[in-house]
């Protein structure tokens, strides 16, 4: 365990009663001062990880280490961690000042010091002058800020955020994404952010953990995860993707929809069945003659920034295209793409195997940023 790591999960499993485990043999390390996001659909176990770190629940198996100390049974009030809850959990019988001061009062901090620290925390979240408001007088966005101030005022080593933006409207949510990211940079505290919103995760994180069915599917920087999804779930969950079946003929040559294409992937067995991902924005509309794929336009939606065009090839594979150019519904068009746009996924590959395979062609440029914990 190195100096930079703040929390470490070692083969942690959590189950309730005889049900299948909510978390299944999960291991990871978080480094100090980074912004992490746990991303996954509801019920995937991401909130359970948060509750395990906060100390509201204990693991059934495995170990949790915090700052080089095993904390499996350490109660929540003894941990250097504060949480921003999904419903904010502000104390309705206390005003804004007392809500923020709660942690300091328990630590028996001096009165003048409390006053100064609470004021500072509130101004950090742009709530100067709101000290003596009652909680019920605050709007959703303001409550959100109070909840953040209440967490940061204690100067914890880590702040956990449990889908804190889900109750806000779109505009406010985008605004808060910027503010949270900015806040984390200024404070230098480790943030662990839980969300099911992939755009939020991509926009804010240093590193994302994609979780499904109690297992970490993939972890990495937002670009890593977007560009090199490990399996169908990740590819589907992070952004829109076209996924088709194919086979790896040899290194750097893949076959799908009955054609052979050059690609950047290697290290597969000859003729190994694989899945191919091509992102909709990597597909370009052209004439059928110039296109590498020939498809028929089925429907088209205007999304503001681009058109979302749904096409089918002659084998009935669906191809989603994001294009600034308009297409005509019912018309035959061609789709062209670069060899880098093809991403090949090995079936049932684990994250370690995936990382190891990427390491082998690290010399091929930008995949070198892959990091193995």
């Amino acid at each position, binding site marked *: 365990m190195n100096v930079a790591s703040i929390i470490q999960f070692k083969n942690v499993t959590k189950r309730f009663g005889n049900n299948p485990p909510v978390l299944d043999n999960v291991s990871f390390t978080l480094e100090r001062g980074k912004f992490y996001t746990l991303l996954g659909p509801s019920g995937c176990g991401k909130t359970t990880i948060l509750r395990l770190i906060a100390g509201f629940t204990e693991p059934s198996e495995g170990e949790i280490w915090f700052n080089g100390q095993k904390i499996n049974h350490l109660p929540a*009030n003894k941990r250097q961690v504060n949480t921003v*809850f999904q419903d904010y959990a502000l104390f309705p*019988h206390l005003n804004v000042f007392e809500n923020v001061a*709660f942690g300091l009062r328990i630590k028996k901090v001096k009165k003048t010091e409390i006053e100064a620290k609470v004021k500072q925390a509130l101004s950090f979240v742009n709530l100067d002058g709101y000290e003596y408001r009652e909680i019920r007088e605050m709007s959703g966005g303001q409550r959100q800020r109070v909840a953040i101030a209440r967490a940061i005022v204690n100067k914890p080593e880590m702040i956990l955020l449990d889908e804190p933006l889900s109750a806000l409207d779109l505009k406010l949510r985008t605004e808060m994404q910027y503010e949270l990211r900015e806040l984390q940079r200024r404070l230098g505290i480790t943030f662990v952010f839980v969300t099911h919103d992939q755009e939020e995760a991509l926009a804010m994180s240093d590193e994302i953990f994609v979780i499904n069915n109690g297992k970490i599917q993939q972890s990495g920087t937002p670009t890593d995860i977007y560009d090199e999804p490990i399996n169908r779930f990740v590819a589907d969950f992070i952004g829109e993707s076209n996924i088709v079946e194919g086979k790896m003929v040899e290194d750097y040559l893949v076959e799908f929809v009955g054609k052979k294409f050059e690609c950047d992937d290697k290290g597969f067995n000859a003729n190994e069945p694989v899945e191919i991902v091509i992102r909709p924005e990597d597909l370009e509309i052209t004439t059928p003659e110039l296109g590498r794929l020939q498809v028929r336009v089925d429907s088209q939606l205007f999304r503001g920034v681009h058109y979302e065009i749904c096409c089918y090839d002659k084998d009935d594979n669906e191809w989603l295209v994001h294009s600034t150019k308009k297409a005509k519904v019912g018309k035959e068009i061609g789709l062209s793409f670069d060899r880098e746009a093809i991403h090949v996924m090995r079936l049932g590959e684990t994250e370690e195997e995936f990382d190891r395979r990427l390491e082998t062609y690290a010399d091929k440029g930008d995949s070198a940023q892959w990091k193995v914990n």
Partner: protein
Amino acid sequence: MESKLSRNLYSFSYFLWIVIFVILPILLIVYYSLFDIEGNFSFVNYQKFFTAVYLKMTLSSFWYAFLITVITFLIAYPTAYLLTKTKHKQFWLLLIIVPSWINLLLKAYAFLGIFGTYGVANSFLKIIGMGEQQILFTDFSFVFVSVYIFIPFMILPIFNSLNELNPTLLDAARDLGASAWTAFYRVIFPLTIDGVKSGWQVTFIPALSLFMLTRLIAGNKVITLGTAIEQQFLVTQDWGMGSTIAVFLILIMILFMFLTNTRKRGV
């Protein structure tokens, strides 16, 4: 127009009820309190009330009501708290509520049997070697039975307010460094104080005027305002004095309700 008419019609029955069963009786009590035992108009009853005998009685009445309320509360709050943590909480709550459906007099007679010289309680004391004790007609038995009777009424409002409490608030308090006890007295208790206040009201006010239990269980060794009123009306036949005590009882109740006035808070 029509809605106004129907509203007046509905409120009419309400006002009729209030006038016949609340205002008129209170006026009658005040009226009777202004006559001495001979039927002459005078303030002598009020003078009498401020003598040592009656003040002591008021004080002792207060003391017992207070004792009963406090003990009931000390039992009811933890019970209500545990109930909210159980799996089938509504069922367990029902089990506690059910005895309150049985007539008070029946329960009092049941306790006469239990606490009597040859009752279950004494048999038990004999087995554990404490010998036969005089349990009935003591302060202890009076407070015990009263507490037993009031427990469901105290539990219900406290249970409701605990049940409404957002459990995440407890997590939040713990997260901010509060021990279990600190979380309780800084968050849980203040947020359930409204339930506690209603519980105190429904216990303390009736406990002030208990008279059947004082007679049956305490054997008139405990004199409360309730007993005093009963004695004045039925034994001494001094309706004036009985009404005067009743006037003060009503005043005390109003004062107590004012003091424990519940103010709705929260989001």
